[in-house]
């Protein structure tokens, strides 16, 4: 146990240091790849060992780890404060200072330091560890060749990769720590580490925009951190223990404690970029693709929803729970609507991430076993598909020099393999029998009882279809026989392939995942209410999988006929010039093919909509936190 945990949490730290200190590309390659492999194996091993109730690491060189963490905590806040001054961001300064003061009060005055087990893992944590370790590792590995090309593209004199991988790899360790933590102070520590890492990674390129966006990410997350500290204090006040497990078993406790829980959830909201805090995650798009992929799929934002989900028993059956559901559902709709107005591929991905996180949060708020199942399903499958999509977009961007989905129209012509993977990724995000949709399905069933949530879910899922379908469809195109396909480095192809296989294959395993991982947990003490299994019968999924798989097989076989068909151009009112969509226009001049999507700018224009969304989101948040009282 101890070995596994230290591998999962400390190995990344050591590897990160190795990357940072040994500035050689080959070593970095080796270290990152090996770390990735080891982490993945370790996470699986941990899963096989199953959940455990409590484990404390003991001491390091005679110092208690609790103490070390406390020291590190203040050190961390100090670093953040330093950046706050360096960047002259008043927000960061205020929020961090407040955190330092409150934390000191909390640590030195309020808390009675009784030993609390630092780690604990139920199946939710184990699942999170799997996601973080495996998907995160794949992303890091993908990052190796990617960053080489990226830097070549930027014409950097001196490579900044050691730093980059330092933060990237350490991130994984922090995430693992975060999801396994039981002591709330530890949780807080890891929470802050992820804030700092993301800040550094977003600002990695050092451009003006990058720095500005990184600063915004940091101040927002410091705000969240502040919420966390206050929430922690309030919650401690009520249950008088630092153990999260104890907090959860205690269930909802009185108004003040609930407000505390609400504030911790608020921290999770910020981290998960729920409206009105979505802007930091959108800003994070300036970072190199592996960063966005990491932030969006397996780390950072997942930490946010993880916290909300983790605390679910603590607010079950309260008004807070309902408001959380509404907040989440609102984020789901709002960001799906915002995504419709976008043509920037990464932005679409970002909005879709936020929107899906909203759905997860909504499920947490619905707080029935079915809803929790849905939430966990969504976390798993969203991570896989989204990382796949991000990596695809990154690859495509490096190849065609644009991340605009309009420029990806007919991409299949140029990059058949990558666009095929991307199309698959898109499909796994929105269609049955893939996991994300199963999650959505369960979410809708779970929400059927609460009118406002269901309306928002219904609207949101339709909006989702729009932006995915047009992207996926747009990438399809014609290839001439014999046209060479793209060639990419192995370390780019491999993660893409693995993720794609994962996205498709894992969906087939949903019943197994449900039966072995989720269901036991729901009947366990923390989350148990009466167990009504969801309608996710094994038959439905397997049958669907087989039927649609067969269908696809038939379809692709039929598609193979395409080359033997007579070639005719598209319908152009008869004015065709050739087969590529150009036509003979006015004055006998040739006019090239051009197509653009509908962005419905008058309805879904980003600026206007964002303003309304932010106002409504903020109002809902206030309602939520106030609702605790």
């Amino acid at each position: 146990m101890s070995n596994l945990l230290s591998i999962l949490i400390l190995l990344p730290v050591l590897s990160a240091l190795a990357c940072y200190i040994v500035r050689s590309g080959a070593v970095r390659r080796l270290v990152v790849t090996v770390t990735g492999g080891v982490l993945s194996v370790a996470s699986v091993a941990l899963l096989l060992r199953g959940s455990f109730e409590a484990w404390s690491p003991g001491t390091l060189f005679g110092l208690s780890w609790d103490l070390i963490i406390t020291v590190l905590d203040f050190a961390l806040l100090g670093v953040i404060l330093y950046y706050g001054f360096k960047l002259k961001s008043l927000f960061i300064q205020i929020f961090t200072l407040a955190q330092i003061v409150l934390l000191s009060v909390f640590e030195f005055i309020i808390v009675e330091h009784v030993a609390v087990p630092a780690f604990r893992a139920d199946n939710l944590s184990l699942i999170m560890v799997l996601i973080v370790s495996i998907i995160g590792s794949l992303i890091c590995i993908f990052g190796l060749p990617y960053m080489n090309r990226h830097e070549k593209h930027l014409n950097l004199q001196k490579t900044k990769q050691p730093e980059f991988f330092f933060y990237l790899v350490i991130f994984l360790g922090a995430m693992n720590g975060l999801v396994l933590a039981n002591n709330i102070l530890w949780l807080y520590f890891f929470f802050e580490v992820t804030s700092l890492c993301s800040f550094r990674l977003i600002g990695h390129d050092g451009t003006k925009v990058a720095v500005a966006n990184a600063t915004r990410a940091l101040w927002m997350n410091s705000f969240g951190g502040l919420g966390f500290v206050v929430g922690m204090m309030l919650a401690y006040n009520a249950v008088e223990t630092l153990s999260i497990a104890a907090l959860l078993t205690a269930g909802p406790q009185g108004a003040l404690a609930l407000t505390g829980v609400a504030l911790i959830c608020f921290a999770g909201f910020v981290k998960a970029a729920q409206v009105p805090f979505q802007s930091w995650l959108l800003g994070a798009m300036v970072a190199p693709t592996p960063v966005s992929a990491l932030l969006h799929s397996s780390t950072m934002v997942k930490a946010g929803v993880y916290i909300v989900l983790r605390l679910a028993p603590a607010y079950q059956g309260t008004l807070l729970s309902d408001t959380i559901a509404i907040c989440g559902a609102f984020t789901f709709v709002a960001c799906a609507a915002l995504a419709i107005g976008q043509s920037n591929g990464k932005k679409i991905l970002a909005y879709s991430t936020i929107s899906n996180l909203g759905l997860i949060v909504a499920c947490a708020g619905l707080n029935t076993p079915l809803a929790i199942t849905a939430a966990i399903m969504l976390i798993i499958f969203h991570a896989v598909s989204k990382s796949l999509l991000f990596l695809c977009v990154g690859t495509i961007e490096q190849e065609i020099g644009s991340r605009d989905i309009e420029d990806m129209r007919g991409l299949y012509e140029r990059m058949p393999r990558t666009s095929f993977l991307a199309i698959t990724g898109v499909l796994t995000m929105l269609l049955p029998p893939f996991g994300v949709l199963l999650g959505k399905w369960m979410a809708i069933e779970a929400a059927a009882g609460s009118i406002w949530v269901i309306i928002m879910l219904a609207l949101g899922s339709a909006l989702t279809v729009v932006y995915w379908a047009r992207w996926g469809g747009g990438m399809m195109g014609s290839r001439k026989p014999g046209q060479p396909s793209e060639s990419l480095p192995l370390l780019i192809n491999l993660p893409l392939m693995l993720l794609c296989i994962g996205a498709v294959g894992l969906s087939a395993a949903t019943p197994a995942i449900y039966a072995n991982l989720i269901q036991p947990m729901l009947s366990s003490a923390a989350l148990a209410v009466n167990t009504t299994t969801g309608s996710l019968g094994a038959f439905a999924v397997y049958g669907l999988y087989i039927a649609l798989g067969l269908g696809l097989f038939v379809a692709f076989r039929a598609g193979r006929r395409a080359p033997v068909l007579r070639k005719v151009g598209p319908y152009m009112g008869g004015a065709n010039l050739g087969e590529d969509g150009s036509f003979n226009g006015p004055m006998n001049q040739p006019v090239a093919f051009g197509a653009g999507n509908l962005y419905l700018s008058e309805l879904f224009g980003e600026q206007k909509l964002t303003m309304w969304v932010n106002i409504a989101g903020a109002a809902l948040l206030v309602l939520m936190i106030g609702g605790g009282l």
Partner: protein
Amino acid sequence: MKYVILAFIGLVVAPLAGGLLAGIDRRITARLQSRQGPPIRQALYDVLKLFGKEGLALNKWQIICAWVYLIAAALACTLFFLQSDLLLIFFVQAVGAVFLVMGAMAGRSPYSQVGAQRELIQVLTYEPLLVLVFVCMYLAAGSFNISDILAVESPLLAQLPLAYIVLTYILTIKLRKSPFDFSTSHHGHQELVKGVLTEYSGPYLALTEVAHWYETVLLLGVCALFWTTNWLWMAVLLMATYFLELVIDNTMARMTWRWMLKYVWGIGLAMSVVNLIWLYAG
């Protein structure tokens, strides 16, 4: 055995019924326009003929998408007859809808590109309403499962009159009838020249046509769920609904999608919400 028969009905009988219905539709439409109209089996002839024609497609994705559209529609319809979960059926038919759009986007054809975008708007319009209608049915019957809905004692229509009206809106959109026939329509006299279907020809067009029959039957099936206690009344309800669709088709101009989005969302959401609240209260 029962399930085999039901699956057979869903897979084989349903499209034939859909085809005949399409023929009847054309016949009645003709009569409403004071024309004699084609024979009832005309739609079947059309599809058979299309299967015998040369297929033209811009690329393989189009062909794939046409097939998936058909298969998803068939699957959804079969699941319906197997009395499965309404939401599941809904999502499976959404596969078809999405692939139809993607197929239209796969080629460099401006008409089908625009058609695809409009089709997406249609999907955007009806999907939430359909989900809400299903939720209404869930609240009234206590389950999303069709077998449970069939077991309900009194006609759902009594509890869900507004939801049924919303459903007729969805039906109009899905049947591609005026005033919502802008992404494609049964007659090509429209600014998009059949929009999403512009680039399909021969057998591939036939596939989409058959898929459309499946969808028609599926939607009428959903309508039928509103009166399951008595066969006669179910038939009357279906006939009245379909005839109403035809009259609407023939007495209205085609509108624009901007109008549809605002109008149908406005009215549809309002009616669903009222009906939902009513169900909650009652």
